[in-house]
């Protein structure tokens, strides 16, 4: 740690508390602006600014948000992961197939409790972690740039998902769906005092944990260090290959969880074609939230706000009656605008 002291000092100087507030405040202002805009556009019905709709938005943010947490860590470390969507699809297929395999073998009371689902979902998260660890090992071992490595695994994981599922959709039989499954992502949670869906709370908790790890742990500071300047970090004694594998594996776990949530969102369906292009949505959310493709930048809170901006746009456009093509254009413009503003604010560095 002492080797890194000058480094940490520089980081503190550059990204002091004020800078950090700025980084988060920028996207946050954007979110408020968009919300006000949609509220104005839907002022006659008022359907956008209802509690129910915001609960719906929370549910619609969970999958992207969970995957984006992993991507935040990867992008801070100066890398990228294009295989997120494919991993999510692979995980939905694996979970659905495991439930179909395990559930009939269990005794009755364990079946009704949904033990098979729990086991399959835990294994699904681990499959995501494995996918990430493979990505990380290839990046560190082959010394090929992450873009290319994960472009490869983007195809490989998608192919595996289709191969496992015989290119079709894997359904979990109704009797294998435990009563609690659909509650995880129900817009109106039970019990009511939860306010938002349990899945959304899981995202919040995970985000808080990641934020603390990134900000206060040695590992977290090393991630920023490697992303800011890899050779300096190496000279300071950071085991860069090991760190990259670790970051990818942890991010893979988050992606695996996103896959499990996607499985739940689709009423327990394993779909090898799902989440096509999710990686780009996730990267966009991180970038809007202040992340940088060249590493060393980004925060968990910023990413979450980025994700919210994306899903408020998706949801708001429906309420405002804006057709799909226009939505795509708007989101594209916002991505570029957000990053440009960010650059200007930093003095064009």
């Amino acid at each position, binding site marked *: 740690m002492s080797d890194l002291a000058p480094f940490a000092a520089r980081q503190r100087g550059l990204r002091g508390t004020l800078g950090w507030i700025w980084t988060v405040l920028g996207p946050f202002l954007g979110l408020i602006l968009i919300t006000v805009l949609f509220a104005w556009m839907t002022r006659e*019905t008022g359907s956008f600014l209802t509690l129910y709709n915001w609960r719906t938005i929370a549910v619609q943010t969970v999958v992207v948000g969970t995957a984006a947490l992993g991507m935040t860590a990867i992008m801070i470390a100066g890398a990228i992961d294009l295989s997120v969507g494919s991993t999510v699809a692979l995980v939905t297929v694996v979970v659905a197939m495991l439930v179909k395999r395990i559930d009939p073998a269990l005794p009755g009371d364990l079946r009704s409790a949904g033990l098979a689902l729990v086991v399959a979902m835990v294994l699904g998260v681990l499959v995501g972690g494995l996918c990430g660890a493979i990505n990380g090992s290839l990046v560190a071992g082959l010394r090929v740039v992450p873009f290319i490595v994960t472009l490869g695994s983007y195809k490989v994981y998608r192919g595996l998902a289709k191969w496992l599922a015989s290119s079709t959709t894997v359904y979990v039989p109704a009797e294998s769906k435990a009563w609690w499954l659909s509650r995880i992502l129900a817009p109106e949670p039970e019990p009511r005092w939860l306010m938002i869906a349990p899945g959304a709370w899981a995202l919040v908790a995970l985000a808080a944990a990641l934020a603390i790890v990134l900000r206060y742990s040695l590992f977290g500071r090393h991630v920023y260090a490697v992303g800011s300047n890899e050779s300096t970090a190496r000279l300071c004694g950071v085991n860069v290959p090991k760190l990259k594998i670790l970051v990818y594996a942890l991010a893979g776990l988050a992606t695996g969880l996103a896959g499990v949530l996607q499985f739940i969102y689709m*009423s327990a369906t394993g779909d090898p074609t799902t989440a096509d292009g999710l990686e780009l949505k996730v990267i966009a959310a991180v970038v809007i939230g202040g992340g940088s493709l060249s590493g060393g930048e980004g925060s968990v809170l910023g990413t979450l706000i980025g994700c919210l901006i994306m899903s408020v746009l998706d*949801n708001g456009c429906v309420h405002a009656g804006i057709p799909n093509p226009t939505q795509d254009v708007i989101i594209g413009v916002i991505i570029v605008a957000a990053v440009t503003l960010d650059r200007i604010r930093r003095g064009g560095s």
Partner: protein
Amino acid sequence: MSGIGPRGLRYLGLALLAFTGCGGDGAAPAGAAGTGPRPVVLIGFDASEPLTSALRASKIQGLVVQNPLAMGELSVKTMVAHLEKQPVEARISTGETLVTPENMNEPAIDRLIHPPQVENSGGASLSGAKTKKWRVMVIPKGTTHEFWKTIHAGALKAAEELGNVEIVWQGPQKEDDRVLQIQLVQSAIAARVDGIVLAPLDAKALVEAVEAAVAKGIPVVVFDSALETTRSVSYIATNNYNGGVLAARRLGETLGGKGKVILLRYAVGSESTEQREKGFTDTLAKEFPGLELISDTEYAGPTSDSAQQRAQSLATRYRGKVDGVFCPNESSTDGMLRALEGAGMIGAGK
């Protein structure tokens, strides 16, 4: 049903295109330029501009067409009837018709294969205040396909005739995007529409979203493809099984009851096309013992491109051995037509 979305548009640029966009335009197999084998009888499903012109040129011997205009119209009318507390039927069939090169110029048939269509910009939106008594959100499987534009026209026709309902038209762009369709149903609930008219992309994955709507007091009419729930108001669709029966009879009669036949299936899990395939194979087995099904295990996949690739392999493999082909939806018929044309196995001499 008529399932193609926009062909995989990826925005990562050339790098990804190299991975995903390849395939499709293979050359005709060697020997196609020769005298050519006997022409193959092709029976398809659904009408689009290329398919009807191929029908006119007798490259296709029959198309089973649905009536999307009636489907869109009846769906909205059924929803409004339910909202006004009138009894409605739980299952409404909108009919299916066999179009052949001989009957395609009859006015009634011509209306079916050249139905009115509307572009996506039309209709009410969720943003404004309700101007009519009822606001109904219609969610198709996709918005790009001509079939859905006709559904849209039917829905607007119903709205115009009834006068007390406004249509909000919003669908996913890709016809395999279950997640987006679930989100649309959720948004419809949040926007407190009076009713939802839905063509579910998936018989199972949409169930919970629909039941959440019903639990919130918003009735749901299902059209085009079935949904595994008992809580919808009504199910309005083509009798797809009967469509397959019509196709099998046409193929059997054109071939004189004798020959070798290929069925290019669409996709596993697509309820409507599986019904057509079943109607086709059942009828072959029952009514045409002289027709032999030499291949029924291949799947065309979701787009014309994927269908064409699969059809090309089939055409090469069964060249000179096959007499008739049935494809159960528009994209598979389209791909098969192009593959057979490329292989010189169809209509060249006419």
